[in-house]
């Protein structure tokens, strides 16, 4: 650590104002503050500072993602090779497939972040640490790396930097990447060939549970498999158990908002129950509580819907926002045959509506308080 500090200090003068590499100061400071707690002091205004800054929040989310990522890596191997292999064989196979995706996502995304920071002269934000990890976790494992890179470029430039960078984005950047890849390279993002690594070569085909449902075929995974995540799907989305571990960490540290998670589960349950009651076709008869276990629902609700930037800001707004995400996600799954999975669309749609929800929640609050004030005046 001492060595790192000394090295950084040695090069610091080069990046100070008026020095040779002044332009690249944001890049240097970005590395510096990533390694060490920034040592600047407050100059004016409130002097109370919390140890939890943007960086700590982002690192917490990354930590919460680790269990589901590790499981995902193992599951890649399991889906491809099946039983009869040691844990290390399965994990090693998955690692060879998954870590290049992670490297591309971080490499391209952070590169762009640094580029924009230098061009615009602001500091590098840590927001991409989470986004960069989320993106490979919500992609099918067979997605070519260059497509992933294009999707990352689109997500960072159009999804985030066009709106002003971390904290200003309307949509969740990771989902922007997925939506872009989904519409641009549809054959590589859906169907029964993409969820299992190298399925084109090995002839293994693995359809997601929702894809099987949409195609009107019987499901052959048990509820236990769905919960544990021994099913084909995007890398990070399959294991509900691992996602719940992540959720526990996020709720314990207060990074994720329990209102959104709870209300989205309620929304999905309500929609699922309505469909179960109607039961007009085989898709509608799929038990409502199993909807919560399959596809990207758990992952989306825990890691995407709770994104503090793109979600509603008011507490009441969060209830409405979460509820509608759950409600719409199940509705899209059942009604739209072209999109077996509705979570991505539901979250993106509600991201767009989140500021509107906030606006009306605040307007209602002002109205109520005005009424109260008038009552007091009369009395």
């Amino acid at each position, binding site marked *: 650590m001492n060595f790192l500090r000394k090295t950084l200090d040695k090069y610091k003068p080069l990046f100070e104002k008026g020095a040779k590499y002044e332009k690249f100061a944001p890049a240097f400071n970005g590395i510096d503050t990533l390694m060490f707690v920034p040592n600047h002091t407050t100059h004016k205004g409130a002097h109370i500072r919390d140890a939890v800054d943007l960086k700590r929040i982002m690192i917490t989310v990354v930590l919460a993602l680790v269990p589901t990522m590790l499981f995902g890596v193992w599951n890649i191997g399991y889906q491809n090779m099946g039983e009869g292999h040691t844990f290390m064989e399965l994990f090693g196979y998955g690692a060879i497939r998954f870590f290049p995706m992670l490297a591309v996502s971080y490499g391209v995304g952070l590169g762009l972040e640094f580029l924009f920071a230098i061009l615009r002269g602001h500091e590098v934000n840590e927001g991409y640490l989470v986004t960069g990890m989320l993106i490979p976790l919500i992609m099918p494992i067979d997605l070519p790396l*260059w497509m992933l890179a294009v999707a990352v470029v689109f997500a960072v430039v159009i999804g985030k930097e066009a709106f002003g960078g971390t904290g200003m984005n309307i949509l969740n950047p990771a989902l922007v990447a997925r939506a872009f890849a989904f519409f*641009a*390279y*549809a054959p590589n993002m859906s169907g029964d060939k993409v969820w299992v690594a190298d399925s084109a070569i090995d002839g293994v085909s693995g359809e997601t549970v929702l894809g099987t449902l949409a195609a009107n075929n019987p499901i052959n995974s048990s509820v236990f498999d769905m919960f544990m995540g021994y099913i084909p799907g995007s890398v990070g989305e399959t294991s509900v158990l691992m996602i719940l571990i992540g959720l526990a960490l996020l709720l314990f540290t207060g990074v994720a908002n329990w209102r959104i998670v709870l209300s989205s589960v309620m929304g999905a349950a309500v929609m699922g129950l309505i469909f179960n009651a109607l039961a007009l076709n085989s898709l509608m008869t799929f038990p409502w509580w199993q909807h919560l276990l399959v596809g990207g629902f758990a992952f989306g609700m825990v890691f995407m819907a709770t994104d503090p930037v793109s979600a509603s800001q008011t507490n009441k707004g969060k209830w409405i926002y979460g509820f509608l995400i759950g409600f719409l996600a199940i509705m899209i799954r059942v009604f739209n045959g072209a999109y077996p999975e509705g979570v991505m669309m539901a979250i993106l749609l509600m991201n767009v509506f989140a500021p509107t929800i906030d606006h009306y929640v605040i307007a209602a609050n002002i109205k109520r308080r005005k009424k109260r004030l008038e009552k007091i005046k009369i009395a």
Partner: protein
Amino acid sequence: MAEEKEALFSKQNRKLLSDPLNDNNPISVQVLGICSALAITVQLKPAIVMAIAVVFVTTFSNLIISLLRNLIPGRIRIIVQLMVVAALVILVDQILKAYAYDVSKELSVFVGLIITNCIIMGRLEAFALANKPWKSILDGIGNGAGYGAILIVIAFFRELLGSGKLLGFEVLGHKAKTLAESTGLYAMGYENNGFMLLSPMALITVGIIIWVQRSRNRKLIEA
């Protein structure tokens, strides 16, 4: 004559031509005529034809209205303008049907919809009604070209990235059913970007053009 005669291409007149291409572009600055920019930019060829048609209509409608400007009663000027524009659009439509039938079929209803293109009415109202014929012609050409330029840029990227072609030529190589039979970029595993063919991407492309233009042209940034 007391007044000094202005040169045909004086500085002021040249500005009428060049302004709409950059500082006052109808699409990227005034944000007019977006619908047709989304609808007919999937391929380059219809976009070019559309650009030529709009240049034709803006130029001649500007000229005719400018010639008539002292004769048109103010209260019915919109109707008169519409008549002139409609007549010109029908002319364009008939010419396309006669000499470029397949392009006319591709453009379908959007040729007729040139009538409703806000750029044309806007130029008539804002410019031709108050200016002399020569200036109006220049203004018409400038605005038509400003619109057309953006259209062609969008169509270039949409056709190139969306279907890997330019004007119908397979510039990125041929995509066959299998990787081995493909040539060019497709042999390396390249795939067309299907999103480019959908209209949201046209809107995003317009957005990117506006972004690039504003970061290059500081005059356009609102305080």
